[in-house]
């Protein structure tokens, strides 16, 4: 007699745990051909707030880790992903409607992207920092620092590579993240949460919510304890404008959706620089 499969109930990833939505809601997720895959948790405003609280606590832990340690942890994420490569390939192929070989290439690129960003953690301050030759008897230097809690609206269609491309740079800088996963293709994000939970990423450094972007993003954008928001996954100009206006109330830094951005290409520094602050320190020189 054939064995019945154990069906998975998908949940959120907040503060290192996997809670259901406090609202108790869920929504059906289908594959590319419209077949039911699973129910995913449908996060609420309260879940957004809980996630921001968790991210603030996670920021303290994650940003105080050494850059070397953060690099090791991000590399560990790549290692754990590699171990679950087949699962990611199956999920990306099913959700995005790709052949296994195509999906495999996207998963490989996603894993390599973590490695790329892992290598950046302890080089950013050298590349983006400065010793400033001020005209006076002072030692003056500038260092990049993580801006804090970053809200990330993940790309809608690139369910894994797109997601990694927006999340990895945020974590590489030492920021913590609250990610709104692709509404229609959330499964790779949920699996990535399980990877993060087992990769020494501190609880709260990365939080992943599934649900309606149009419902959740305004709460994230207007939250006073969110320092920056990445609207890469917001393709609707009217919603993007509304979110940017909400962010303006507390001068939250905004990264806009750029239709020309090729997430498959080697990223460059812009996603790292966008969530960094530059701090300049002066001290007198004398005997």
């Amino acid at each position, binding site marked *: 007699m054939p064995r019945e499969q154990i069906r998975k109930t998908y949940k959120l990833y907040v503060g290192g745990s996997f809670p259901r939505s406090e609202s108790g809601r869920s929504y059906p997720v289908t594959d590319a051909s419209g077949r039911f895959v699973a129910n995913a948790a449908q996060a609420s405003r309260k879940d957004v707030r809980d996630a921001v609280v968790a991210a603030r606590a996670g920021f303290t832990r994650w940003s105080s880790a050494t850059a070397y340690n953060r690099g090791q942890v991000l590399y560990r994420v790549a290692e754990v992903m590699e171990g679950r490569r087949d699962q990611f390939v199956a999920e990306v192929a099913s959700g995005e409607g790709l052949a296994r070989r195509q999906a495999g290439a996207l998963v490989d690129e996603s894993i390599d992207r973590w490695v790329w960003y892992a290598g950046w953690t302890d080089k950013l301050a050298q590349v983006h920092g400065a010793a400033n030759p001020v005209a006076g008897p002072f030692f003056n230097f500038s260092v990049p620092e993580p801006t804090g809690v970053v809200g990330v609206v993940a790309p809608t269609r690139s369910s894994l590579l797109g997601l990694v491309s927006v999340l990895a740079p945020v974590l590489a800088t030492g920021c913590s993240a609250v990610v709104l996963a692709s509404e229609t293709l959330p499964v790779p994000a949920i699996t990535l949460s399980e990877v993060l939970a087992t990769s020494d990423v501190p609880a709260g450094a990365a939080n992943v919510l599934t649900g309606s972007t149009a419902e959740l993003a305004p709460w994230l954008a207007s939250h006073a304890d969110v320092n920056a928001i990445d609207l890469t996954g917001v393709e609707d100009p009217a919603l993007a404008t509304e979110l940017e206006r909400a962010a303006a109330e507390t*001068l939250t830094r905004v990264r806009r959706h750029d239709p020309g951005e090729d997430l498959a290409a080697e990223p460059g520094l812009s996603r790292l620089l966008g*969530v960094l602050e530059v701090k300049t*320190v002066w001290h007198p020189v004398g005997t």
Partner: protein
Amino acid sequence: MALFEYSPAPESRSVVDIAESYGLFIGGEFVEPTDGRRFTTISPSSEEVLSEVAEAGQLDIDAAVQAARSAYSRTWSRMSGRERGKYLFRIARIIAERSRELAVLETLDNGKPIRETRDVDIPLVAAHFFYHAGWADKLGYVGLGPNPRPHGVAAQIIPWNFPLLMLAWKVAPALAAGNTVVLKPAETTPLTALAFAEICQQADLPAGVVNIVTGGGETGRLLVESSDVDKIAFTGSTEVGRLIARSVAGRPTRATLELGGKAANIIFDDAPIDQAIEGIVRGVFFNQGHVCCAGTRLLVQESIEAEVVDALKRRLATLRLGDPMDKNTDIGAINSAVQLARIREMSDVGEAEGATRWSAACTLPDRGFWFPPTVFTDVAQTHRIAREEIFGPVLSVLTFRTPEEALAKANNTPYGLSAGVWTEKGSRILWMAQHLRAGVVWANTFNHFDPSSPFGGYKESGYGREGGRHGLAAYLVADETTEVAR
């Protein structure tokens, strides 16, 4: 306490020649405002009317932006960085040559002491142009790829606290990066910006590369909302910063905002007290406290509070308040009646909320806008004077016991522009500097500025940096498939 008497040492105002009225500087020429509206600018130390300036309206803003656009596409964006740099060097030299005149003009229009305009503002203005001139042909080294490009037309709005210096912070990097600009000086301090327009003519800067439109908040709004500006750079209040951030939503325009602050100046018990007192004075009474990065919250370790407050009061009693044109003057006039009213209101609130007020016993002149150096003790973190920006010579004193408590109190603000730390212990300086959430940290010093040193805030103090490689980057678009987030 007896003071040495000083004889008056007034700087001569004969070095400046202020016209009775000024037009708008658009397309390389002074033109009359379309609807003929004008307003006066006064000397805040005497309330004497200095001149009448134009109030730019919609048509004037359109003309200025059009002039900047045309200069961008026809001239400035086609010119090599090397040639652009020569113009900036030339401007730097002219500013240095005319520095005495500019210092006097600034003091007359702003009310700040001639000692500050002469020794701080104007030398830094020349230095900013000199520094950025050298960048113009080296943009590939900024860190944005080999061929970063300018935004195009930059709309720039500056405050009244360091009028010409804020102009330099805005115009020098914008031009070095290859942008053209439309700049609006503050309503109460337009004169040095108009003198700068003459300097642009004197330097033969191509017409339209720099346009200067005078006016108040409404003029600023029109400029911000102009659909043909590619970049907005603003220094001013957090309140207006929010409006600008809202205004650019949904537009391709990028903004950098340098906004308010409520900086902590933290004095540990092992600090060099005499130097710290000088630092406190420099931190909050420099420029009458009209400084966004002013160290307005003094956090002093509990064990030395009495000693520090006593020494501070003794020192404040020796400050000379009065004629800004006198070379001995330490504290000049408050910039405007509006600002004076705000400072008075907030000081009254401080008393009403239970803090203890002390003001230096100085005679205030009969005419003009004046406020004595004032210190509040018994201040709680919840008091408005400990939370809100006052932008005047008013200090709030709070205490702490441990470095962790100092840090928590210092960071307990929506702002994050600057902070000060005073201690002889090196590891503690670095620990504090690392954990303070502020864009500029002065350790065992305060309120120093340099064109090579990035300046700008965390959190609600705005975004973007001005000065140094990082400040220049704000006027460039990265040479990548994607742009750097603003």
